[in-house]
């Protein structure tokens, strides 16, 4: 990443346009809006969709609704991954006061919230034909909804605090506390009586899926990891450019 952080609380370096990609794009006013990583992620997801729809057998009892699993589980695992990154980078921020760690946490939290939204939308669509209800206040479902609210609060908090170091510190604490919910969500099917199916992949013994279904699941998971990486990277770049804009605005305000 060559774009310097000019800091929300510090003046930017007055680098000439053309010295970094963002400045060149900004000067032209026609930025490269979709990068190669997003295109690669989109192609991987299309390939995963094709594999799920045409090359994976339907489950004998649930029918096609079982294939929602290839969308729901990778989204859940990527939400865990995203909030795990928030957890680590928030600790790094509190420890080293490194602004890049705060921006990575911000990016990862937003993408994790998007994955959790997909989990909370696709789960009920599967539940309706299988359980006969869209929603039940089951421990796994309820804790996942709480996780969504915590990270929605995280995003709102970041928008509400204007002072950069205070914003980074408060949101790091919330980001760490929110991620502590993840082990409880994963273990909730063991700890409580729940309707939610038990893990059939992430469990102590071998996955209990037929090989063709397991391979599709792994393919889909890999595609959505690429989606996580591509979107978090794009969101991180947006954070850098916002920091640069804030620095420029501060510089111009100071010059008046």
């Amino acid at each position, binding site marked *: 990443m060559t774009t310097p952080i000019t800091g929300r609380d510090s003046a930017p370096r007055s680098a000439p346009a053309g010295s970094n990609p963002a400045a060149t794009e900004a000067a032209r006013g026609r930025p490269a809006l979709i990068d190669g990583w997003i295109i690669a992620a989109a192609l991987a997801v299309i390939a995963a*969709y094709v594999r799920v729809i045409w090359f994976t057998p339907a489950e004998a009892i649930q029918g096609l609704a079982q294939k929602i699993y290839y969308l729901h589980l990778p989204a859940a695992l990527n939400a865990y991954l995203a909030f795990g990154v928030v957890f680590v980078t928030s600790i790094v921020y509190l420890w080293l006061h490194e602004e890049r760690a705060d921006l990575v946490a911000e990016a990862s939290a937003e993408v994790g919230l998007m994955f959790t939204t997909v989990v909370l939308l696709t789960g009920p669509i599967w539940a309706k034909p299988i359980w006969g209800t869209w929603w039940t206040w089951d421990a796994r479902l309820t804790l996942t909804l709480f996780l969504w609210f915590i990270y929605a609060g995280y995003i709102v908090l970041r928008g509400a605090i204007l002072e950069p170091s205070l914003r980074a510190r408060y949101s790091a604490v919330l980001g760490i506390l929110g991620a502590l919910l993840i082990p409880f969500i994963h273990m909730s099917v063991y700890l409580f009586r729940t309707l939610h199916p038990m893990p059939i992949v992430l469990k102590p013994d071998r996955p209990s899926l037929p090989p063709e279904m397991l391979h599709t699941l792994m393919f889909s998971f890999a595609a959505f990891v690429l989606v996580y990486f591509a*979107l978090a990277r794009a969101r991180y770049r947006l954070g850098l450019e916002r920091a640069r804009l804030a620095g420029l605005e501060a510089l111009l305000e100071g010059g008046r």
Partner: protein
Amino acid sequence: MAQTAGYFHAAYIVAGTVYVLYTLSLVVRRRRVLQRIAALQRGAER
């Protein structure tokens, strides 16, 4: 086998829509920030 194809298609359309809308939101927000930076740079040069 249960007839659940409608739910399957609905889930894939809903998830695809969330991913596409989020990607578009990144594109729109980035374009706005870059345009604002360009406008400030033009203003500073004058």
